[in-house]
């Protein structure tokens, strides 16, 4: 059971003179919870954006389920099976919670203008299926009671969950979460860890960027550490924690064994 869901090799990206990513490679096994960590400005979000097609890469290749990901646009990446959430939550703020998740079904449904105008039976069936699936996902993330609320009226933690439900609606192979625990209190963070495990239990691989070291270390199966756009370490949480290169990147001295303190 070491099937790889996503591999990237030699990925590079620069903005003007700044080399944001240099020769980054990654191999994520299906069903893992994979962590991506590194000090601020290490290139984590840039790497996310390259993976999800928001940025085009300068060089390197990405394969999803063994098939190369050619088109470098967000919609192509999503159709191929990579869904994401954003560091600064990007919901459709003025739409209802239910509509947000229903929009997530867009790429997996077909009905066009004429089917909608004529209300063809196929279109009505599809609409019913979209809504049923959206409600199912809302129940899964614990927001069923919020379905008719306006997205912007939700508290922060629930907005995060809604964004995850919306991403799950796209039937992803790989769910990429950009700092999902940022700004959450201890109990919200615990609930989030539970939710991420439940997502993995459904067979979806999770890739996450996170600064909360306790969260990452306890949740992830493997971790990749970036610093200045380069891969400096990769392995299980225990391996990464002991890696002198990681300790050096976080603390700059190599003295402490608790990288979390520096990042918190």
């Amino acid at each position: 059971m070491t099937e790889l869901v996503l591999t990237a090799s030699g990925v590079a990206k620069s903005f003007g003179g700044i080399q944001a990513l240099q020769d980054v490679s990654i191999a994520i096994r299906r069903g893992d919870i994979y962590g991506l960590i590194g000090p601020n400005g290490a290139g984590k979000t840039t790497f996310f954006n390259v993976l999800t097609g928001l940025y085009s890469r300068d060089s390197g290749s990405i394969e999803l389920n063994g098939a190369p990901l050619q088109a470098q646009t967000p919609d192509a990446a999503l159709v191929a099976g990579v869904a994401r959430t954003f560091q600064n939550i990007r919901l459709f703020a003025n739409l209802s919670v239910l509509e947000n998740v229903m929009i997530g079904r867009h790429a997996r449904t077909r009905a066009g203008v004429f089917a909608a105008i004529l209300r063809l039976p196929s279109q009505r069936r599809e609409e019913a299926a979209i809504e049923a699936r959206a409600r199912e996902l809302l129940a899964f993330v614990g927001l069923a009671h919020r379905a008719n609320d306006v997205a912007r009226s939700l508290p922060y933690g629930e907005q995060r969950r809604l964004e995850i439900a919306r991403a799950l609606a796209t039937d992803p192979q790989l769910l990429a979460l950009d700092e999902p625990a940022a700004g959450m209190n201890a109990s919200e963070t615990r609930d989030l860890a539970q939710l991420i495990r439940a997502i993995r239990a459904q067979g979806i691989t999770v890739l996450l960027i996170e600064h909360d070291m306790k969260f990452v270390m306890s949740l992830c199966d493997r971790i990749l550490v970036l610093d200045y756009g380069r891969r400096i370490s990769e392995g299980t949480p225990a391996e990464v924690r002991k890696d002198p290169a990681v300790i050096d990147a976080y603390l700059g001295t190599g003295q402490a064994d608790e990288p979390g303190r520096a990042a918190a």
Partner: protein
Amino acid sequence: MPELPMIERLRRHPKAAWIGGALVAIALLLLPFALASVGTAWVRILNVAMLFILLSLGLNIVVGFAGLLDLGYIAFYAVGAYVYALLASPHFNLHLPFWVILPLGALVACGFGVLLGAPTLKLRGDYLAIVTLGFGEIIRIFLNNLSRPVNITNGPQGIARIDPIRIGGIDLGNSETWLGLTFSGPIKYYYLLLLVLMAVIVINLRLQDSRIGRAWEAIREDEVAARAMGINTTRVKLLAFAMGASFGGLSGGLFASIQGFVSPESFGLTESVMVLAMVVLGGMGNIRGVIVGALLLSFVPELLRYTVEPLQKTLFGKMLIEPEVIRMLLFGLALVLVMLYRPAGLLPSAVRRRELDEGRA
């Protein structure tokens, strides 16, 4: 408050809904005769108002649903009108039937919609507004100048003696008497417009509540997030331009047949801005709001036209300010007031949705 539960009970009663609908239908059917007893001019004004509702509903797809600011929308109206005028008038001596030209006009306008949409896909907000503004002007200037070396549009003189619509043996341009009632041309056109309007409203409602409608809303709310949700924004935006333009073209064809005459001056920037004002004033994205906005902005200026002059005559004994000036003054004032006190429009869309939800709970 004993009335509230009563209203609530009526609202939930299926029979009440049917009776209410029937009453509205009867009122809509009798409306032109009531107006005709005041003066045939009012039936014409009503028809123009309905054309503007059609236009506003089309523009609402682009501006209200997809959030793309279009200041040149009247160009599609012009395209539809000229397609009708060229194919059903003595100008080229072509007299094709309406059921060929109206859809053709919508189709040609749709093509122009894609033509405008394609190069402007990366633009947003102000920049898009400027390009669409230019597009609207280009179409008008073309219509003005395509009379030489080959006379296609007849330039500023416009095209006259356009065929009225004929359905079966009924000529919508003539007056006829059935069952003791006089059906004048405008009254017959009113019924045609009512039919078209019903169809367009149903199409709009269905589009709004569909996969495509949700994709438009997603783009309006957050384009990056929409793309990350797998929405092909290029295709979906073009679709909005194409749909909006088709409705514009359809209304243009109807306009040409009703007026019997088209010239470039009917399709200036003022008209574009007027239609946009109807959408914004009524409530962008809300179909009911847009209809109310279009009705208000079509009727109120006409009412003023008929009241300002006599009022000044009785008050001062002479005309101090031209009706046209006062009309635009009050019109501007009304717009400023609405934007100050109801920035989301008279009937904003989100509020209505919340009200509906409360009603269900």
